[in-house]
């Protein structure tokens, strides 16, 4: 332990001397309250430290203690369902202890150290415990198996002792290595160090989000990375909430980074009530929340991203598919900027430090699909919201993020203003995973790729026509072009738009997604032939099947896809009549 003395305080950045024997990135207890801080620069015996709690009242001369350890999180059973701040202090417990405000200097344990877990060993005395070999297993929740491994920062060796099957708390050792090291059900891991895995894998499996515009047009793979940029109120948070609720990941780590407190409260209130359609369990049983809201200390906002990613890696290492929602990475970048400013570093663009792109790259690189040390397949999908000032995507955070992600779900102000949700622009967005995922989707529906391309082309043509319509009005267009406008509207209203509040519409299974889009395209193709055969557009526009198709999304539940037959027959009847009339 090293003890130093504070010599300067400038907001959350302080300096202390007498710390020549402390190391860079050591975690410290600073001041009389023992506030948590981290050494971010060393110069002679003077350490520059960022403080993760409100340090009002801190005085020059107060002491700083370093235990010579990096900032770490505690990993073990009991993380699921909890809400933590940026440095893994359990907010639910803080509330019980100190009331509604977050007071600085309160010491807590991230995990319940008293709770007993049922541990079933897989190894016995004399076995060699290698990296990635499960020592045993704990049932963390009713459906979540939690294998216990040798912590990756401990040496492999022979087991001198393994405790029998039974219940243990996190403070009781469950095994002992030959060199005397005791193993527990939990261990700590430095947040800034990525956890090891065996090798990286391709990403051929989609992360199904239940959101049609994403899954069909701009799909993401398990292990992929995506950014959701958008001005305020365009739907970044709603999109992330929807994905967290409905995607087919095993674990969700939701990082509220510099955003609203009420949005975290919303998750805490809503998630326990929602049931995962695949497991039937409450989705809170697969969710961990990290909340460092906008009014909480800014330095802890910077670290919250790493805390979240480390928890995600821990579950990935067990072979789970984890999805991280980071809302918003711009606030994290701003925290970097604020701290960098206080350190008087030379700024690059718009005051952001020059290392912003490096940090962004490091963060997104912690995503991916891997073979774990045990040999299982696990993944971390990272979905980051970006909040560009003035909604202008040319700013540094959006631009740099674009270099490190492969899905770009651009939110459009005009769509949001028209309450077209999700306001994901089909013009500006892209996904680079389309090809990798083709195999999966063709198993769902052989027509997937064709339908998707046809529909996208239709939308692109509509966009070009819309330019002309703006100048001369739709009536000047030929009927075939006006049919494009009509069908593009059907795609927008009946497929792209998806209400997060409609109990049927909020989540679509892949089959339903393709069925709706296919039906619209079938309508278009047949209608086009009818118009070419001489029918006026009006005849088509007045068909009742149009409204039926557009309302399918909220009228046909995922479990009752057979109802589509009715709409199909109506389509056949109505178009069939016209086909007869015009001899198509």
């Amino acid at each position, binding site marked *: 332990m090293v003890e130093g003395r504070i010599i300067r305080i400038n907001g959350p950045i302080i300096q202390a001397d007498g710390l020549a024997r402390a190391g860079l990135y050591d975690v410290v207890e600073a001041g009389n309250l023992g506030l948590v801080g981290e050494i971010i620069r060393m110069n002679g015996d003077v350490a520059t430290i960022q403080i993760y709690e409100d340090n*009002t009242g801190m005085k020059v001369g107060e002491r700083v203690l370093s235990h010579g350890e990096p900032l770490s999180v505690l990993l073990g059973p009991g993380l699921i369902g909890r809400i933590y701040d940026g440095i893994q202090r359990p907010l639910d417990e803080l509330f019980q202890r100190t009331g509604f405000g977050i007071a600085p200097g309160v010491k807590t344990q991230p995990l319940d150290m008293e709770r007993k877990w049922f541990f079933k060993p897989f190894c016995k005395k004399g076995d060699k415990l290698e990296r990635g070999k499960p020592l045993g297993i704990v049932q963390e929740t009713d459906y979540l198996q939690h294998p216990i491994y040798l912590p990756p920062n401990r040496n492999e060796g022979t087991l001198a002792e393994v405790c029998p099957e039974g219940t243990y708390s996190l403070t009781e050792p469950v095994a002992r290595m030959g060199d005397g090291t005791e193993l527990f059900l939990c261990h700590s891991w430095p947040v800034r160090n990525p956890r090891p895995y065996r090798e990286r894998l391709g990403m051929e499996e989609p992360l199904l989000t239940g959101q049609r515009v994403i899954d069909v047009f701009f799909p993401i793979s398990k292990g992929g990375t995506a950014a959701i940029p958008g001005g305020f109120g365009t739907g970044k948070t709603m999109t992330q909430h929807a994905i967290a609720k409905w995607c087919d990941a095993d674990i969700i780590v939701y990082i509220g980074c510099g955003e609203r407190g009420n949005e975290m409260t919303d998750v805490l209130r809503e998630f326990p009530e929602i049931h995962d359609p695949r497991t039937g369990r409450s989705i809170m049983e697969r969710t961990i929340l990290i909340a460092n809201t906008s*009014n909480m200390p800014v330095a802890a906002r910077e670290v919250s991203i790493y805390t979240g990613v480390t928890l995600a890696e821990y579950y990935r290492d067990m072979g789970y598919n984890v999805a991280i929602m980071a809302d918003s990475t711009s606030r994290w970048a701003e925290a970097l900027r604020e701290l960098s400013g206080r350190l008087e570093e030379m700024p690059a663009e718009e005051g952001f430090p020059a290392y912003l792109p490096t940090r962004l790259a490091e963060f997104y690189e912690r995503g991916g699909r891997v073979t774990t040390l045990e040999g299982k397949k696990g993944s971390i999908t990272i979905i980051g919201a970006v909040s560009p000032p003035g909604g202008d995507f040319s700013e540094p955070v959006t631009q740099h993020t674009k270099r490190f992600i492969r899905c770009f779900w651009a939110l459009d102000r005009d769509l949001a203003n028209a309450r077209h949700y999700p306001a994901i622009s089909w013009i500006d967005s892209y996904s680079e995973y389309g090809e990798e995922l083709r195999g999966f989707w063709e198993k769902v529906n052989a027509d997937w790729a064709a339908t998707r391309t046809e529909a996208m082309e239709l939308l692109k043509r509509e966009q070009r026509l819309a330019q002309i319509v703006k100048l001369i009005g739709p009536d000047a267009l030929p009927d075939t072009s006006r049919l494009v406008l009509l069908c593009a509207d059907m795609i927008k209203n009946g497929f792209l738009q998806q209400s997060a509040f409609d109990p049927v519409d909020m989540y679509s299974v892949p089959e339903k997604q393709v069925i709706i889009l296919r039906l619209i395209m079938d309508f278009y193709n047949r209608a086009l032939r009818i118009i070419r055969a001489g029918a006026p557009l009006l005849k088509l526009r007045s068909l009742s099947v149009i409204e039926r198709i557009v309302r399918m999304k909220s009228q046909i539940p995922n479990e009752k896809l057979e109802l589509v037959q009715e709409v199909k027959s109506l389509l056949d009847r109505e178009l069939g009549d016209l086909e007869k009339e015009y001899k198509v």
Partner: protein
Amino acid sequence: MRGLEFKGLQSVEGPIIILERRENVGYGELARIRDRSGVVKVGRILEVSDSAVAVQVFGPTTGLSTEETSVEFLGKSLELRVSVDMLGRIYDGLGRPIDGYPEPFSSEFRDINGIPINPSARAYPQDFIQTGVSSIDGMNTLIRGQKLPIFSGSGLPHNRLAAQIIRQARLKTEESFVMVFAAMGVKYDVARFFIQTFEESGVLSNVVMFLSLADAPSIERLITPRCALTAAEYLAYEKNMHVLVVLTDMTNYCEALREISSIRGEIPSRKGYPGYLYSDLASLYERAGKVKTSTGSITQIPILTMPNDDISHPIPDLTGYITEGQIVLERELFQKGIYPPVAGLPSLSRLMKDGIGPGMTREDHKDLASQLFAAYSRTKQVRNLAAIIGEEELSTLDKNYLTFGDRFEREFLSQSETENRSIEQTLDLGWKVLTHLPREELYRIKEDLIEKYLPKTPIGR
């Protein structure tokens, strides 16, 4: 130390003084500065080092000399004396009574910076507040515990709208509000206008006012909203009251912040505003809400004027990123003579989703509002087209949209300053203006609701 005064400064630059550090002063704590004529001002410690202390002075620093100024360190943060007797009182921007009466009798003090509310201690706001204004109740519903700013422009009637909300805001349960009003850098007549509003509606004794008018030192504005929110938090979270806070004008607040930042030589981000403007604003706006330990609530209506009517200016932009929606006033509507000129599309209430619907407002509310937004957005496109090809050239459907848009603005959005519409009236009006569209266009509304609520009159009646 308390009671001990240190004489002499190293430097004075604008509102910041630097002095030699001769004792243990705490970062962020309070200092009391006495100038050569004995006038006392308060200040806050910005930075401390081994040898020096930087203090931000909340008052004019004109005439401060380096030799004849003395400073006392109070060893605590700036605090406000709190009591329910604050209601009916008027304070200056630093929380000192200016209505001629002594401070309320109380020994309770609260740090004006508050403490960040723990997200797991929050109760999610979902009680509908009826403001009697259709554009708000129908389209951008205000919820108890929400922070919903008014984005305005100079010359637009934001104060009149705020006053109307203050007069008419009711809960379904008929519980009423107490009010906290903070004026930052506004002119005396604006403050006067609000005082009159409070008087006329007979609520003056239920209002706490903090006035830092245009002639007060600009730096005082950094304190004013914090005093106001401290009063609000005391009343709401400790005394279980429902508090409505009006903060005007946040633009002046942000400018004071920029001033300080530039004097300190900080690296600016956009338009010279400091990089921490977002976090600083959040430390105010996030003090709205409800907590599980109390039955009270804080609803915030910050008012700000957008410089040059530009919504992407850092002040409205960062505010919009923090608040739970925004009521945007639009000059074009105002020039058409429509009051309140609430812009149809950019306005938003994010908490609306959980506070409306059956049992709260009415079952048709969500679908109706969504349809009105969609139809009005289409109207705007049609208007652009009509401006180019002429109205006569439009299709019948597009003409329907023009009529709809016109009725929507003149009948639904527009109302008089004294007209207090019930939510049912508002929703019925919404249906009425929708009759100008063919029924097939109402694709955002469920069929059974159309059946039940759409007036059975032909189009255009």
